[in-house]
């Protein structure tokens, strides 16, 4: 069921949303302020001022250059990732389609078109040389 139209005065129905926003902001602000006020402040020591890196000593600068391939692989991964994300809800819905109509065919066509775009993306990545690990 779709939501009914909201009239001008119904701007008030957005009140809960506003309240949640207010609470979120307030919670975050309160935490920062409270820790400032309540928490002890004892600056000093080299180790204490260091960047926290899972308990290890930080090595080198944070502005390190990564190999561009790192990003490429991340993006190619994303292609398949997104594909899976879309395929799950599709697969979950497909059995519930009304039988006896051609609706199933339409849905099949749609997902094939979607897969086709994924294949094109893959093909593109392949020709671009993303999968060359030399």
């Amino acid at each position: 069921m779709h939501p009914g139209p909201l009239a001008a005065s119904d701007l008030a129905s957005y009140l809960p949303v506003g309240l949640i926003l207010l609470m979120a902001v307030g919670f975050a602000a309160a935490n920062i302020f409270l820790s400032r006020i309540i928490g002890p402040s004892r600056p000093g020591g080299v180790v204490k001022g260091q960047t926290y890196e899972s308990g290890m000593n930080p090595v080198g600068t944070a502005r390190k250059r990564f190999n561009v391939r790192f990003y490429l692989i991340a993006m190619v991964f994303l292609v398949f990732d997104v594909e899976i994300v879309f395929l799950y809800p599709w697969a979950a819905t497909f059995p519930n389609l009304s039988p006896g109509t051609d609706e199933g065919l339409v849905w099949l066509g749609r997902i094939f078109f979607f897969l086709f775009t994924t294949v094109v993306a893959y093909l593109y990545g392949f020709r671009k040389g993303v999968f060359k690990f030399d």
Partner: protein
Amino acid sequence: MIDRIEFLWPEIALFVTTCVVMVLGLSRRIESRRMTALVTGLGLIIAGVLAARTTPIPGPRSGQVLLPELIPYAKVLIASVGSLLLLLQAGTVDRAEEAAIAAGQRPYDPLRTNRAEYYAFFLFSLTGLMLCASADDLIWLFLALELTSLPTYIMVAMSTGRARSREAGVKYFFLGALGAAVFLYGFALIYGGTGSTNLNAIHAHLAAHGLNLTALAGFILAFLGLCFKIAAVPMHFYAADVYQGAAPQVSAFLAFVPKAAGFISILLLTATIGWSYAADAQGPLYTPITQSAYDALEGAVSMGLPEPIRVFLWVIAALTMTVGNVLAILQKSVKRILAYSSIAHSGYMLVAVLAGPNNGTFSQSGLAAVLFYLLVYGVGNLGAFAVLACLEGRPDADGEPAEIEDVDDIRGLWKTRPLLAWVMTLSCLGLMGLPPLLGFFGKLPLFTSGLAAGEIVLVVILGLNSAVAAYYYLRLIKASLIDPPSDADLPATPTPFATRTLAGVLSAAGVVVLAFVGGGLMDRSERAARYTSMMAVAPPPPPRKTPYVPGDDTPFPLPIPIGAR
């Protein structure tokens, strides 16, 4: 939903072409790579032919029903201007790389070339633009708009090898994201205010219940966000920097494609609101008024957009054209002049949006005026940018030729490159709206539709602005056609890409020829602007001056959510 496919063949053709181009552009063989542009053009032509063969069917099957004839006109326009733009794109990317490969300095490395991506983005953007025209739903419209814009961000960044282009691309991206956020917020509020994302349903709701505050805020935000696409105040800041940073052929693309997307979207949105509201409507709602009710009032009120939206568009239009023109006057860079003039042209077109369909004839319909002016502006603007794209300065250390940008650089073009001088002259005269040329026949309906809608003051502002605009256009003409060549040793030399010149000559010829043989185009745009409002058949509005009673909502008459069939 499957029915809609038959109206989407042009987009599908473009998409398939995109897939082919993306792979073809990465071929090892130079011959195959060279085919990329050709295939792109083929795809555009096929899409154009398919669009021309589309016959709109009245009713919800073909999508939105308010502007039923819009689809074929808009898509054919997009395909044809797109083809012209394609001619201009020759050699934009990979020029130095291909030269190095041909010279045997480097082997072919797909990671170093951009050809496939460039043409794919080009087509993606045009696909998005066509989808805008097909949109019947806010979500569809949003996705189409983003598909139009996203590729352009990258096209700007990769159009030249210079840092300035990257900077422009990044600026464009961030500000574009902000703009998109604004109109997405607006779409959400429209949904909130009317209960649907379907344009027909929104219209039906507005026709029956009037415009409430939520929807009003939504429309205002949506328009503001779309102002980014058309580069209108207050979202115009990016235009000059981005146009200047991008290569001229990409600037030409930016000046047409996002603008067309923006105006088509604005037309669709204003069509859902409709132009039949009594101007003096009282109360919290802007109640629509049918023609019969209007007639009963014997012209005591004038009809138009709901007052807040009318005033909003009025102010935006006036500010946009004024700001664009006064800033253009001060510029030395041709690209910035054209960028600001592009802002001003958006302002001109907003006048016609404001005017609405009136009686639907070409001379009175603002919608027809906008649709026709898109063509006029697209052709004229393309010619002016083509001149810049056809020229280049001496190459720098990286072999990247310097860009021709300053007005001084095109001085004395009549002596060195007479053809380009004439292209510049005709394009500028066309953009200026000089009588025998196409620009005049484009601009006249802007005036007449505004007058027909009774917007006298705005039309006067439009006239004054046209006069101001003549200053900088004449400056360009003077530089290229009258001034002696600058004494520096020939700053501008021609590019080796003949198709760019061809694009310029074709658009300059268009400015002249279409003015004499373009009567059919006027008829087409008049037909494309046919506006079928439900307001004529809507139930009579609640008696005027009766306060609105909250909770009095009748069940929504036409709920057509997506995929609910």
